[in-house]
């Protein structure tokens, strides 16, 4: 999981005024040639700031996303699912670790980032502000939220910042297993008892709107990000990614005999793109600004985890602690 629906600030027209024009031109030429920017290379302040913001949001999404799915580890039905879900959520936490490290190369510490998460200064993927009521909800997340994340991350993996791209390459390889796991779980619900089918249909009804929100506001209303596209920070428009997701997964959902709760959803034969009911962007804004069903709970759990672990992290810093040889 779980990147996607990154929110970017609108770019002010004068934000590059203080940059050295020669260095800036050289930087942009490198990106245009497809070169990667590495941590010690020169970069505009705006590039650094927006990258930190994006990678940090992605990392937060991984650890917050572990919460709704983690709840189902202790409830997973049977050994096969229990073992797979444990491994999957562990991967997500591992992704957070990779991503925080990638963001740290830009000069912000993991501790600062986690503090900003807890105090509400930085965001995470909006979709995790919704509750996972049943096992089928967790299957929806594993299959379709991960699928959405892959669409987003495959695009971002072709971006310009080396450490982030390398982290994403590893992340995408693991995500493809998550997708298989999630799809497998959903197939079992789809072909199981009427109760199992109903469980997934209900999950689909609950999660469709947040899933459409996942890729971020419509291009018609989202902040202008041309310079971020030029710098290969943002790699595809929100609507393009949403369309790609619908292209890949709507047929699979229909194939399993489920009904997607949007009567307008259809592929337009003239445009080759999907028509759908415009998601409620007011709700998206309301939820991302803190007023969703689970925002408070998610941040509270994270805050408690940080607080309870504080003494452990302090003890690791203790000067009198003797060094113990790491395992590998």
């Amino acid at each position, binding site marked *: 999981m779980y990147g996607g629906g990154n929110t970017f600030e609108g770019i002010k027209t004068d934000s590059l005024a203080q940059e050295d024009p020669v260095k800036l031109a050289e930087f942009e030429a490198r990106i245009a040639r497809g070169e990667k920017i590495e941590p010690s290379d020169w970069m505009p302040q705006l590039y650094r700031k927006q990258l930190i913001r994006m990678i940090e949001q992605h990392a937060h999404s991984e650890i917050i996303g572990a919460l709704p799915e983690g709840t189902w580890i202790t409830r997973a039905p049977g*050994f096969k699912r229990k073992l797979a879900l444990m491994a999957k959520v562990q991967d997500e*936490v591992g992704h957070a670790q990779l991503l*925080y490290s990638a963001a740290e190369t830009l000069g912000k510490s993991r501790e600062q980032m986690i503090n900003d998460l807890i105090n509400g200064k930085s965001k995470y993927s909006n979709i995790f502000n919704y509750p996972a009521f049943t096992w089928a909800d967790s299957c929806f997340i594993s299959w379709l939220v991960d699928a959405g994340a892959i669409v987003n991350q495959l695009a971002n993996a072709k971006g310009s910042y080396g450490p982030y791209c390398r982290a994403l390459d590893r992340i995408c390889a693991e995500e493809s297993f998550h997708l298989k796991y999630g799809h497998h779980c959903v197939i079992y619900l789809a072909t199981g008892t009427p*109760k199992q089918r109903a469980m997934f249909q209900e999950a689909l009804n609950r999660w469709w709107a947040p899933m459409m929100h996942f890729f971020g506001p419509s291009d018609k209303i989202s902040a202008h990000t041309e310079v971020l596209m030029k710098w290969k920070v943002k790699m595809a428009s929100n609507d393009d990614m949403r369309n790609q997701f619908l292209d890949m997964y709507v047929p699979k959902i229909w194939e399993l005999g489920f009904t997607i709760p949007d009567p307008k959803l259809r592929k337009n034969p003239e445009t080759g793109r999907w028509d759908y009911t415009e998601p409620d962007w007011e709700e998206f804004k309301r939820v991302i600004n803190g007023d969703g069903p689970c925002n408070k709970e998610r941040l509270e759990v994270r805050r408690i985890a940080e607080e309870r672990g504080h003494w452990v992290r*302090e003890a690791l810093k*203790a000067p009198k602690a*003797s060094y113990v040889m790491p395992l590998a």
Partner: protein
Amino acid sequence: MNEIALKELLYKIADDQLILGHRNSEWTGMGPLLEEDIAFSSMAQDKVGQSYAIYNLLHALGEQEPDTIAFTRNANQFHNSIFTELPNSEYDFSLIRHFLYDTAEIIRFDLLTRSAYQPLADLAVKVRAELRYHTLHANTWIKQLGSATEESISRLQHSLDTALPHALGMFEESLYEQDLIHDSIFAGEKILMERWKQQVEIILSKTQLQLPDWDTLTAVNGGRKGQHSEHLQPLLDEMSEVFRIDPTAEW
């Protein structure tokens, strides 16, 4: 070979691994740092996987399918030690339990590599290799936090004092102890406990933690006979919540 004795041995080992694996997995998303979150998750996967392998040995001996065994029994049918079912509490307790438990488990599986019951001996070789990482992990952290700050030392000491009587409950003897020893299936809890005490003493001597005199401690027994604390049934209810919606369904 006394098959009832063998099955009882397998049940208690598998139940221990399943229940503690389940507890370890509760740290997912809650660890004091990401690296520990990930480590407890790895150990959880190993332990649950090991329980699955042992339930499969039981299945080969005529018991039910592993899923049925794990997800449909009630607390009084479980033979795990009470120690494994206690809530995670704070990280200091989880870490101390992990240390005391895995120190015993690696010795237990080392003894089992010489079991006369060959399928168990074969499995024990594999499990012992996995447990090596669990004890390395536990020892590393106990040594670091057991000598770091006043707070970390006092927390670990408090948890050690709370945990030890329960830890001794791991070595509660079976009714068939003598049969197991006689048939060379398992060398017995007494030998295991003596070796465990020595190893615990070695590791703790490298920290500022104090071990009480073993003679002053009374083991909290009962788990091996299906007598559990109030914590096991809620754990099992949660674990089987989805499975019980329809135990005949495939999930």
